[in-house]
């Protein structure tokens, strides 16, 4: 078993597990930064599926897509963290439940 090739589905299942953990973290955590990191975890999980399918199709396009995901994640992190800094400056809190004035 150790020397057999790894079935592709395992990678996908790993990706699903990580994605699920990301979703759970997003819902469960209350610190904005941790919530943000949960999003990054989800993005990583998606990247893993891209790379896996790229291997299956023997095409490099999946890598390109995950590359773009990374770049977008970098942009998102820059803006998102700036927003978090501003929120903290204005409200002195990082708890996501305290930032709920955007409602009816």
């Amino acid at each position: 078993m150790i020397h057999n090739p790894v079935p592709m589905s395992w990678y996908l299942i790993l990706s699903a597990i990580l994605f699920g953990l990301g979703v759970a973290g997003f819902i469960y955590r209350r610190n904005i930064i941790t919530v943000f990191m949960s999003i990054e975890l989800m993005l990583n999980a998606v990247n893993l599926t891209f790379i896996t399918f790229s291997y299956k199709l023997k095409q490099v396009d999946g890598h390109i897509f995950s590359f773009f995901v990374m770049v977008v994640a970098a942009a998102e992190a820059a803006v998102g963290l700036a927003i978090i800094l501003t929120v903290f400056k204005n409200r002195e809190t990082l708890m996501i439940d305290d930032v709920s004035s955007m409602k009816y």
Partner: protein
Amino acid sequence: MALWLIPIFPFIGFLLNGLFGRRLPKAMINLFAIGSVFLSFLWAVRVLLGLGALETKYVEHYFTWIQSGNLNISIDFAVDRLTAVMLMVVTGVGLLIHIYSIGYMSDEGGYYRFFAYLNLFMFFMLVLVLAQNFLLLFVGWEGVGLCSYLLIGFYFLEQYATNAGNKAFIVNRIGDFGFSLAVFLIVRQFGSLDFTKVFDAAKTMPVESGAGILTVISLLLLVGATGKSAQIPLYVWLPDAMAGPTPVSALIHAATMVTAGVYMTARSAALFTHAPIAMDSVAVIGLATAFFAATIGLAQTDIKKVFAYSTVSQLGYMFLGAGVGAFSAGIFHLMTHAFFKALLFLGAGAVIHGLHGEQDLRQMGGLFKHMRITAITLLCASVAISGFPFTSGFFSKDAILVAAYERAPWMYWVGVLTAGMTAFYVFRAWFLAFTGEYRGHAHPHESPLVMTGPLMLLALLSLGGGFINIPHWLEPMFAEKPENQVLAWTSAGVGLLGIALAYLFYVARPGLADSVASSMSGLYKLIYNKYFVDEFYSATVVQPVVDGSRTVLWRGLDAGVIDGLVNGVGIRSRGVGRILRLLQSGNIRSYAAWVVLGSIAVLLAIGLAGGAR
């Protein structure tokens, strides 16, 4: 030959002056404005020299603009003999007026704006002239309308100027409406807008005895032409357009733009000649306009208004020429008119400039000794427009009148009467301005060379322009009409009679004019008030439209129906939203939970639908 260069030069000038003019010194603005038109003129000359005799049309295709189904409209420029005449008139006279404007506008605010608009006008006018299809012509047509509007309202701080601009714009809309209907009908009938295709197809159709499709198209085109070229019933905007600076009146409202209707009629000759009813309408409208405008011109006291009505009247002549089939005579008159009417306006501008803005003839007089060059050049223009033998007006006007006689003798006689009135009112203006004693209070002075130079050039053209045998040049396109020396000399004689009368009334027996006016006070009041046409339009058209808009459209439709509908939708949505807003708690984590639930539902739906194979 790169025809596109001709219009693009003024456009570049417009961009430079329009975008950066505010910060540029006047010399730079002059350089861009005059230089661009000069280059355009030079290139036009080079193109025409390069093309030689122009036996056939020279077309340049640039790119496809609109492609929709079978309709294929491209950006094409073309030059034929008709376009060649127009090109020379537009760029040549335009150049002279640009140069003149340096002097005339030197003390005015918005200097760069004026030249930017003027250059933009040149661009659109050249597009109009060079266009090889109806849509591109329409682009130029609308563009010159826009520039006309902008330049009439140039003194936009004055209420009358903005009103005049609006009036010109709105009246032109009516004409453009007809024009666009005509374009639609052409598309429907011929499946193309290209001049060559449309006219070739039209030539194969039989001449319509009754009211056929060509008649309808031609009449609609005529509606457009009456708007742009100020013919009855849409002429009312042109006298008011004199609110703009005088060079604008000369360039746009005398020499070039207002002749676009004549040009378009001549261009569409293939359509008109197959629709006799439309031809007759053109002739009758032209004749009526010529006559009525001339009568109004008899009693005006504002020097620019006199020339404005004169313009309307002369445009009527051109339409008369086109209507009786003498297209080449119409174009001939267009060209000579461009010379002497531009000169009249520029001369009037020089007078106004010299009198610091005074336009009333009653406040002038005896100016001859103060501004000799202006007086002499204006005299040249006056004899030209009066049809004095061997001046330019003599040849072109008589070509039209002779052709009219061929069609119907009464047209000729009305035309001759009008010619007499023309000579009378033009010389009335000249005598009032330059002879006798000075009646005003300003200190008259001669204009600088930059203004008088163009005047002298135009004076030469006015006197000698008749020897440019345009009808012969245009012969391959329009059949040349027969000549008739007797008729020509008759009308010239009537013109001389008009001059003599004017001399009698305003120089020899100055009191006579007032006594005649008082003895026929009813008629005098009628023509002094321009037949009350503006009041008539205001009562019958403008007021009903305004009232209708105010009561039915605004209070009824807009406030009642549309607002009610929108508000009703708003109130209902608010009601629904009041319930739904409970979902929007502001708590991000609950949103996330909803998103997760939703995606799980989607996944389940896909799975149940058998997507998981």
